[in-house]
């Protein structure tokens, strides 16, 4: 069961049992439990929750690391509404997320379905398709992408062989630069594909056999059996990939040389946040941006959970 499934279960279990007096053994167990949790609890307080609270406060201030923070109230948040570069970066990020994630998941599901049908050499093919997912987040692959989609890169050489000589300079052209990053994300469909493959294996073969007896064709079997039964896996992948895509950073940073260019066309929200915080040391504004990012990610996750009741099928 996935982390999301666990959260569902926790929520469903609902109200707590009333606490009773603990026996000696139970007290000992509880003490042991908290000892084992010491590193995690320390991390929660010092690395996660504490900094979160601090960052919420910093987001209400003007802070450049050198002078003490100066309280501004909601000024940083209001300033965002007039910050055209920021609004543009939100747009760029939305396009990236909502174009690349559906394409990536469609590719993952499509290939997984093809590979699933008792295909020989499955393990080998799975590894080949998974490899880009493993390397795709690295600086090296982003460097490669910059060259692949350069004016005289591999892609344009290939196009030239096909007789296309007026292709754009992809990464240097504001109309196409973001597209190359979308392609990069779609290229890493191997990770969700592996998850789909695991899910597809859970679909009972007997269902397909029964459907075949009833005369159901390939497509009918896919649409009426496979698809409904793997909706929880699709849901899981959608939630996860959307969360990941909103946080994409490395590829845009390297492909644009850290600028988010050309003309801010690859300026992801995270990249603008980095430039604001660690380029200009406007820590207050950067923190406010981080909270906006968190709210956006949380909102889309919540929407996903809410919408899941209309299309995700749980048989438990």
């Amino acid at each position, binding site marked *: *069961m996935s*982390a999301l499934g*666990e959260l569902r279960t*926790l929520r469903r*279990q609902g109200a707590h049992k009333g606490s009773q007096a603990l026996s000696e053994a139970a007290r000992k*167990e*509880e003490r*042991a*439990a908290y000892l*084992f*949790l*010491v*590193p*995690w609890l320390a*991390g929660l307080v010092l*690395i996660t929750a504490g*900094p979160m609270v601090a960052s919420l406060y*910093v987001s209400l201030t003007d802070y450049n690391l050198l002078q003490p923070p100066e309280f501004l109230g909601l000024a940083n948040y209001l300033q965002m509404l007039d910050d055209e570069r920021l609004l543009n970066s939100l747009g760029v990020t939305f396009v990236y997320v909502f174009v690349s994630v559906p394409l990536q998941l469609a590719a993952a599901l499509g290939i997984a379905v*093809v*590979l699933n049908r008792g295909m020989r050499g499955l393990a080998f*093919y799975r*590894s*080949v398709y998974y*490899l*880009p997912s493993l390397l795709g*987040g*690295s*600086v*090296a*692959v982003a*460097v490669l992408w*910059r060259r*692949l989609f*350069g004016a005289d*890169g*591999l892609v344009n*050489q290939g196009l030239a*062989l096909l007789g296309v000589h007026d292709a754009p300079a992809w990464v240097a052209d504001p109309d196409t630069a973001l597209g190359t990053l979308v392609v990069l994300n779609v290229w890493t469909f191997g*990770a969700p594909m*592996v*998850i789909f493959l*695991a899910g597809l294996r859970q679909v009972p073969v007997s269902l397909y056999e029964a459907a075949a007896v009833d005369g159901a064709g390939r497509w009918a079997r896919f649409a009426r059996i496979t698809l409904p039964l793997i909706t929880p896996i699709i849901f*899981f*992948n959608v939630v*996860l990939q959307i*969360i*990941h895509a909103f946080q994409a*950073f490395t590829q845009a940073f*390297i492909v644009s*040389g850290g600028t988010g260019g050309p003309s801010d066309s690859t300026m992801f929200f*995270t990249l603008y946040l*980095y430039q604001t*915080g660690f380029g200009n040391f406007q*820590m207050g504004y*950067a*923190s406010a941006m*981080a909270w906006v*990012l*968190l709210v956006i990610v949380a909102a889309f*996750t919540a929407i996903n959970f809410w919408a899941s009741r209309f299309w995700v099928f749980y048989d438990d």
Partner: protein
Amino acid sequence: MTTDALKTATKHLVVILIGLAMTYPLAWMLVSAVRDEPDIFTTPGLWPVGDDLANFVEGWDSAGLPFSRYLVNSSLIALGAIVGNLVSCSMAAYAFARLRFRGRRVFFGIMLLTIMLPIHVVIVPQYVIFSQLGWVNTFWPLIVPKLLATDAFFVFLMVQFIRGIPRELDEAARIDGAGFFRIYAQILLPLMRPALVTTTIFTFIWTWNDFFTQLIYLTDPAMFSTSVALRSLVDSTSASSWGPLFAMSVVSLVPVFVVFLVGQKYIVQGIATTGGK
């Protein structure tokens, strides 16, 4: 040939062609790294033209310090992260999976939520804390969070795994007088090996590929990780000398690729059961 055999053959052909298309860019980078400079961008094919290691020799020293320095730095960071994750995540996982305590459900829920927390929300105060401690340009900001089990994904992975180990084993040990620590260290840890290997592999790969936090904390060239060094190489590379840059890119991917070859089984199981990246 029967139609079934034909169908199967077609399917394999399609799968192979797509696979080739997907891996082509990687192969092209590899071959370009051993090509003579002017040939890189005039030949989309895969035959090496220069077939010597000049690009590697040139690239090795072009980021300031020898590239081996950055490989060592990245290895140290990865090693620290691996040890941190193995110890702290397995301890937390044992408590969540096996021990009863008040607040377990709430903490478990919080732990699951932190898996999805964007690092950006905490990075500014973290940076302030770590720079107050004088830890900027050390590896501590990259390792200490791992020692404190902040990679909650692995806590979850191990919880899942421990749940699959029969409780009778713990109980038998308890009857024999073993305490909680002995059950954790001598019974569960050895049985958790596959989960620990998966954690090791993913921690290595994610740490090696990490860029955002390393970019923020490592600004002194002597402390650069491989990712950050590669980036500085990009910045200093003129449009005409991509050969050495490609060579070093290839070098930077070799450790990940080797780990992938060795640990494929664990990687696939790891993502299949918990849904990693």
